[in-house]
């Protein structure tokens, strides 16, 4: 079974998602450009190019903050899952807006200096030895470079080509980008502001991202502990049908009576079952596949061993595993989750070898 790559896999939900996102960005930029001259919070007089620069820059900052908040929000409240579902497009759009901000900055320098704009940006401020007046542009350049790399490697091909651990490591750089953007804003626009509004908005935004991550991490820990101490009442095993209907190195998802879902993977004539929910950001593991011998989340490439649900070293994430049995050629799933990281010997298909 081979799935061909396509440029973008569209569906109705994704089209609506992208439309709403583009509309929100356009409305924000237009409102900012209209209102900024009336309620300027900066000492210096502002003109068109500067307002344009700030409109795109503030939009990129808010978008990056939101894109980092979607994962924790979805873990805390499942009603956010539809927003998480197409977050990849949100991230790419964030990189485009950040690039538009950089382009506005280059235009600004081009209109005021005979030096090539890119050189002018690098040489306009070289006070590296002091905190106040530090060349904050450098943090912006680094953040933009990271966001462009993330957007450029967002296609599924890169996950397979670079291998999930490398792809994941690259995409964790988004947190470095966020730190750079925060420094960029703190050492740049905030220093020039005459009113505390901008500082309050920036502080509230960064704090919200941090608090949401902390709350989501706490929720995950509590969930793992609850699973580990689940009672041993013995409910009915769930009929998962013909095991051969599961494509090789792919999964079939099975609904459990409590509303949760299990992903049953077939690989190397063996079967293993894990929860359908990736601990990273609730990605649907059952829509992923076995890559390099491990269950690979289709969203961000998080990997787990199919038999024990443990992420390969040096990562420490664990997911719940489930017991399986074959009876009269049909596959059955024990609906009781094992504690995350529990080894379950894979079920051998007839003719398979351990």
């Amino acid at each position: 079974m081979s799935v061909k790559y396509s440029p973008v896999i569209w569906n109705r939900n994704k089209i609506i998602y992208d439309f709403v996102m583009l509309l929100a960005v356009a409305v924000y930029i237009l409102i900012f450009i209209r209102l900024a001259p009336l309620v300027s919070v900066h000492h210096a007089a502002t003109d068109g190019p500067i307002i344009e620069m700030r409109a795109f820059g503030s939009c990129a900052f808010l978008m990056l903050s939101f894109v980092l908040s979607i994962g924790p929000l979805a873990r805390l409240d499942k009603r956010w899952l539809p927003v998480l579902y197409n977050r990849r497009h949100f991230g790419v759009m964030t990189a485009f807006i950040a690039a538009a901000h950089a382009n506005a900055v280059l235009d600004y320098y081009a209109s005021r200096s005979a030096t090539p704009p890119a050189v002018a940006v690098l040489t306009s401020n070289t006070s590296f030895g002091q905190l106040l007046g530090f060349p904050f542009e450098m943090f912006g350049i680094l953040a933009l470079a990271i966001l462009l790399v993330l957007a450029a490697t967002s296609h599924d091909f890169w996950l397979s080509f670079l291998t999930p651990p490398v792809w994941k490591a690259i995409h964790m750089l988004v947190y470095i980008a966020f730190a750079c953007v925060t420094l960029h804003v703190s050492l740049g626009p905030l220093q020039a502001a005459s009113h505390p509004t901008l500082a309050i908005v920036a502080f509230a935004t960064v704090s919200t991202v941090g608090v949401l991550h902390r709350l989501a991490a706490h929720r995950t820990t509590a969930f793992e502990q609850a699973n580990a101490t689940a009672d041993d009442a013995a409910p009915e095993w769930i009929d998962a049908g013909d095991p051969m209907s599961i494509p090789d190195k792919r999964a079939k998802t099975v609904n459990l009576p409590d509303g949760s879902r299990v992903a049953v993977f077939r690989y190397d004539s063996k079967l293993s079952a894990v929860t359908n929910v990736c601990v990273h950001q609730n990605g649907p593991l059952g829509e992923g596949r076995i890559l390099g011998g491990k269950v690979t989340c289709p969203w961000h490439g998080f990997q787990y061993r199919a038999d024990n649900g443990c992420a390969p070293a040096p990562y420490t994430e664990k997911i719940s595993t489930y017991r399986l049995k074959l009876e009269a050629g049909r596959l059955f799933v024990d609906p009781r989750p094992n504690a995350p990281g529990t080894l379950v010997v894979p079920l051998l298909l007839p003719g398979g070898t351990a």
Partner: protein
Amino acid sequence: MAIAGSIVLAAKVYAAAGACLAGFFLTLGIGRIDPAARGTFVFRVLLIPGTVLLWPLVLMRWKALERQQH
């Protein structure tokens, strides 16, 4: 000024090298190392920026995957 000019020049050379590699990799190499890319071409356009930005990594992986196949 001279250092800034050198940084900008280095970035241009890096991008030019990446563009050359993208030309070879996305037309000739990708189909050899990934069966899911064979016979499908439009998506390759989306891979140009990533190949240009990460071309040393792409070169390493391409080489490693070619070796695995032989």
